């Protein structure tokens, strides 16, 4: 009896047709698109940060959730994107955001291809330590070469000087920041939607299935002819590029890039987001990033000891809800539908 019920539950949970998630996604997208006219600009800024971090966490989770590799050095790729943009704006005098994105992505691809080539030689804890050590190389360089990177002062990137969509949208004149916040939200939302679709296609492609095979059993995966190390490397580069794109988008909104985003606790925050949402699901990191961003903002605003608060959340999460928000919600929903049918 119970077996039959469990089987039915399993079938309904793994066999939704492709159009249902698409409809849900479009509905969420429409709600997100309507939000800036309903809430005050501060909430719009917060949500923009959340969406940017969602892109980073989405990229990160290709490694943790789908390939089974825990990177503790994703600050490196976020920072690589952010610093490349800062250099492009400061040293080349570029104003086009699209140029920044292309440049930032190239910079990140270079770093993540190089670091990934080294890191995928190991798995498990050694992979984590390798990614951590390499990310700290970048941090120490950004920290020490102050005549290039501005040291702890960082590099300023003025949002007012940037243009979006090849110069169609610029922010010269009065009310510059308000107009920037409004337009930039849609810019980020568009790229977030694009990134999500691309990641969805990647994890559901044969390549994505191969990654999951590697995650579940490396030996069997190599026996069926998957070139494990190369697949891991490609996954690493894609993952780094997504996180790098987040770094690129983050800089103009923050207006400043500092070595803090290269320091290893920031990598920890990216891990935190994915676990908070649930790294065993596709949407988990997205939800986790947005929620984490709100959580952190309100914790910082309400208490001096916000780090303690977040630490307690993480500990409770690991001990009590290891499957995260989305994973737990899915389990509760499954139990609910089982209960009613």
């Amino acid at each position: 009896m119970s077996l039959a019920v469990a089987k039915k539950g399993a079938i309904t949970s793994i066999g939704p047709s492709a159009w249902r998630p698409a409809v849900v996604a479009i509905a969420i997208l429409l709600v997100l698109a309507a939000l800036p006219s309903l809430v005050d600009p501060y909430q719009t800024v917060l949500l923009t940060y959340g969406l940017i971090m969602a892109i980073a966490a989405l990229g990160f989770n290709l490694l943790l959730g789908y390939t089974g590799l825990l990177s503790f050095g994703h600050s490196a790729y976020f920072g690589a994107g952010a610093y490349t943009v800062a250099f492009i704006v400061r040293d080349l005098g570029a104003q086009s955001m699209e140029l920044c994105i292309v440049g930032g992505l190239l910079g990140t691809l270079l770093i993540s291809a190089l670091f990934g080539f080294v890191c995928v030689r190991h798995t498990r804890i050694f992979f984590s330590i390798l990614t951590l050590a390499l990310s700290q190389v970048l941090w120490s360089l950004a920290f020490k070469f102050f005549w290039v990177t501005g040291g702890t002062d960082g590099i300023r990137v003025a949002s007012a000087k940037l243009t979006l969509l090849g110069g169609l949208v610029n922010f010269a004149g009065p009310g510059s920041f308000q107009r920037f916040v409004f337009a930039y939200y849609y810019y980020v939302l568009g790229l977030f939607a694009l990134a999500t679709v691309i990641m969805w296609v990647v994890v559901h492609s044969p390549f994505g299935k191969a990654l999951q095979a590697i995650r579940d059993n490396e030996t069997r995966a190599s026996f069926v002819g998957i070139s494990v190390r190369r697949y891991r490397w490609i996954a690493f580069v894609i993952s780094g590029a997504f996180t790098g794109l987040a770094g690129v988008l983050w800089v103009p909104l923050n207006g400043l890039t500092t070595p803090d985003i290269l320091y290893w606790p920031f990598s920890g925050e990216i891990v935190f987001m994915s676990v908070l949402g649930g790294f065993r699901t596709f949407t988990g990191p997205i939800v986790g990033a947005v929620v984490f961003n709100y959580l952190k903002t309100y914790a910082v605003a309400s208490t001096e000891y916000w780090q303690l608060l977040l630490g307690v959340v993480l500990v409770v999460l690991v001990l009590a809800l290891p499957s995260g928000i989305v994973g737990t919600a899915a389990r509760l929903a499954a139990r609910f539908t089982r209960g009613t049918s």
Partner: protein
Amino acid sequence: MTIFIIQLLNSFFYAAVLFLIAAGLSLIYGVMRIVNLAHGTLYALGAYVSAWVVGGAVGHAASGTLGVAGLLLLLPVGAVAIAVVGAVIEPTLLRPLYRRPEEYHLLITFGLLMILEDAMKFLFGGTPLTAGSIMDHMGSIPIGRLLYPTYNLFVIAIGLIAALGLWWIIYRTRFGVILRATSQDRRMAAALGVNVSRVYVQAFAIGCFMAGLGGAVVVPAQAAVLGMGIEALILAFVVVVIGGLGSLEGALVGALIVGLVRTAGIQFFPEIELAVLYLIATAVLLIRPTGLFGRA
């Protein structure tokens, strides 16, 4: 020549502190296979507790009756306090996680790091604490034409004594045999009647004691500041990666290498001094993932 000797002593001083931190990290990994991201923060907490005790009312009373010896006797209070913290953390937070994948070990110790960092801010405030009076009282000794603080030599001696003491505990006592047996095969040790849970608490507490001792001995020379643990953890990582995770000899050799490279780096290539250390760690991981002294 004098400069060279002083720089050598500086790197030994630095290596002694790093060894204390890294040996604890390595011991905990060796026995329980847990990479403790909060280890650097425990070191910082040890520094704060020691500075607070030495600088507080107890410290004044002790220095009044016993002079600098009284203050030195108070320093280990930080280490003992951290051992107690460790003995509380292991059964409550870590024990439920041994069966889970190691990602969760990293996550929970990262959460612990965040909690402890703010607990320090709450307990001791944002201003740096120091136990500099010890350093002042102990004076300095002449080396060539220059003066060198006696206290630094004392720390080097502590590092050596700690290394010998740990070696003696692990390789020459009954407890050490049990520790090594548990580290090699937890289930077999349990089957032979070893109380594995107790060994784990003891091993974790000893590891934390070492971290706290590192903080305690560093605080007369450098002030305890917020964020010092986060930096120290990464350097301790470099040490254990070079020497081999879980190896005591490795921690010693790794600490010496990092101490020497760092001192030379500050002298000759200050901009890339840290980057060089991380690159050495990366190179070792690539060529010999188990480190110079690690087991497979």
